[in-house]
């Protein structure tokens, strides 16, 4: 990597003589090339040094046209590592999952699922469909799960039977006590209520 060593010792305008693919005039200083291009100086994780003009002296050819996945730079942005750990979504390692019983009209026994495992209604409904081998259909605010053989309902904190999907996911997660998959014909009464 000649270019890098020379950049340190002199003010050569390497930009003018460098070989690169891509349209003239494109200046890509934001693209941090992975250090595979610059194995003389950098450790695998650190960013490539830029030349004296503040521009990248050597580039990988893949980075000229498509927006390449940028390499992660060590220590940048300058956010403390303990803080980063705290903000990762904690779906799997929660101390207590939110387990609720799921009954299906006509089935002999109930199932139990952990609501914390799901990111939102689509995932939950998909899981229910798989678990009970049925289809639930699309939710609409006006008509609930019209046209489907089954509709998902739940019992909330106050003991009321509610249609799944009406309230924001977070509120559902904290108020759902148990799930009940009802026959579509019975559920129609719920769908129209606002």
């Amino acid at each position, binding site marked *: 990597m000649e270019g890098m060593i020379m950049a340190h010792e002199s003010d050569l305008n390497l930009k003018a003589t460098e070989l690169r693919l891509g349209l003239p005039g494109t200046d890509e*200083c*934001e693209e941090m090339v992975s250090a595979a291009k610059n194995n003389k100086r950098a450790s695998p994780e650190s960013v490539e040094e830029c030349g004296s003009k503040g521009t990248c002296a050597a580039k990988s050819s893949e980075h000229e046209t498509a927006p390449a996945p940028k390499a992660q730079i060590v220590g940048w942005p300058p956010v403390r590592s303990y803080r980063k750990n705290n903000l990762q979504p904690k779906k799997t390692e929660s101390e207590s999952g939110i387990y609720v019983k799921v009954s299906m009209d006509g089935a002999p026994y109930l199932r139990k699922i952990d609501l914390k495992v799901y990111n939102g209604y689509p995932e939950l409904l998909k899981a229910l469909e798989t678990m009970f081998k049925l289809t639930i259909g699309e939710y609409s605010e006006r008509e609930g799960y019209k046209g489907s053989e089954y509709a998902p309902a739940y019992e909330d904190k106050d003991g009321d039977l509610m249609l799944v999907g009406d309230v924001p996911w977070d509120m559902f997660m904290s108020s759902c006590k148990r799930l009940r998959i009802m026959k579509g014909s019975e559920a129609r009464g719920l769908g129209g209520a606002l």
Partner: protein
Amino acid sequence: MNPDPKKSKVLPSNLPNSNGSSHPHSLFPDEVLEKVLSLIDSHKDRNSVSLVCKDWYNAERWTRSNLFIGNCYSVSPEIVARRFAKIKSVRLKGKPRFSDFNMLPRDWGANVHSWLVMFAKAYPFLEELRLKRMTVSDESMELLAKSFPQFRALSLSSCDGFTDDGLKAITTHCGNLTELDIQDSVTVDVGGGWLSCFPENFSSLEILNFSSLNSEVSFEALEKLVSRCRSLRVLKVNENITLDQLQRLLVHAPLLTELSTGSFLQELTPRQYEDIESAFGNSKNLQVLSGLWDATSFYLPVLYGACSGLTFLNLSDAVLQSGELAKLLAHCPNLRRLWVIDTVEDKGLEAVGSSCPLLEELRVFPVDPYDLDHRHGVTEMGFLAVSRGCRKLRYVLYFCRRMTNAAVVTIVQNCPDFTHFRLCIMNPRQPDFLTNEPMDEAFGAVAKNCTKLRRLSVSGLLTDTTFEYIGKYAKNLETLSVAFAGSSDRGMQCVLEGCPKLRKLEIRDCPFGNAALLSGLKKYEMMRSLWMSACNLTMKGCRLLAREMPRLNVEVIKDDGSDEIQADKVYVYRSVAGPRQDAPSVVLTL
């Protein structure tokens, strides 16, 4: 020239000057001088006092009780022990700040042990120890616990190296402990047994902070501890404490002034919800609130009763949306300091601007620093909105994905009182979002308008012009952090020549080379430290610096795979203790 300079300095000018007297001390006894000096707390003032004359130097060193050492390697334990006789409280800082971002090897140094050995001999009446970025082993903690019978306060900020055993030694043996604060110190697998080791009759605790420890403590032990420590005013628990557990703790400690909650997500019965709501309502003295992990719009309202007195709200662990923040802030009219995550977006910051007229400090952290798609978070609009509503702003830390020169110019016109301006445009070398120009004018405006500026962090696409501005206008600047910026050596030179009060300079990934480094030869002795990594420094330049300035320690950290010519990471600091003896093999002292 006064023939007796000692006499003229010791005597106050309005006392009659007895000519020919050869006993100046009988007019101004040491005891009086010491009594007066013992009233001076600030270490900066004391350092000045000690330079006046030998008498004052001695009087000062006999009366200093608070020791502050900003760089543990700038002086040795032996030198300290020889100079000061009566130290009761120590504040000691170790690693350079970039160690927070994993830029230092694990065993770089800053181990407190040799200091504790000296303290045990020279200052057995030590009461307080506050460490920042130091390594503290279990062995050190045991030594600490057993050597100082009057020990009261231990604060470990961003420290590492200890486990449950070390903490157990502290809680078991320090019978007079009033403060145990392990803020930001994360050690893997610390364990939670230490909390259960406080003796049954132990009740002196006033400050307890274990919010950053991952492990579970015994809630039963914690509840008992809180109920018998009637003077407890600061309680910061970790995420493992649930909401209903928190409620029980609050009932035992209604006089808390600072609280960090545990997890805020838990299925509560209506009764439990009411209970926690009323517990917060009864916490009339709360000024500082943090924690709130996983808080959602459903549970935040339980806080409202405690918010009217809040001056510092730290939401940096609560992933909130703009609406949730707005509703919460409506209850917090007295806020002076606010930390949030950028999920609140510009809309949330508009609420900050309109709800918090007394705000002095704002920090906005990125929820996902490595999300390189940059579609979310805050922009220049949010910062502008805050600056319009919060004219008293003096401290800002702002992580954003885009910024414009025009916005920053307006912001510092709205808020000229900035003392700390830390702007992090997360994409390195990103230009002005609208004009595509460098961000030089933005930081130029900051330097020009904010005459009280003491700390500055720059980012975005910057040429040497930025540093010309800084050198020209930022006359009170003490700390400067630079990354991915500048065009040539001239940039760094402007700063070194122009900023008389500069104490800490940290630089990474900039095109500054040996010429820039060497232009600051004389300056570095007046500074605490210089850090330069991934710049254009060579071993040759560093050796030259080390040779010319024997009272500087010039340390080079070698990265794997680097050659013999480049100096990858360079740390330069003044020291009267000479080169350190505990450097690991990857650190070369030149």
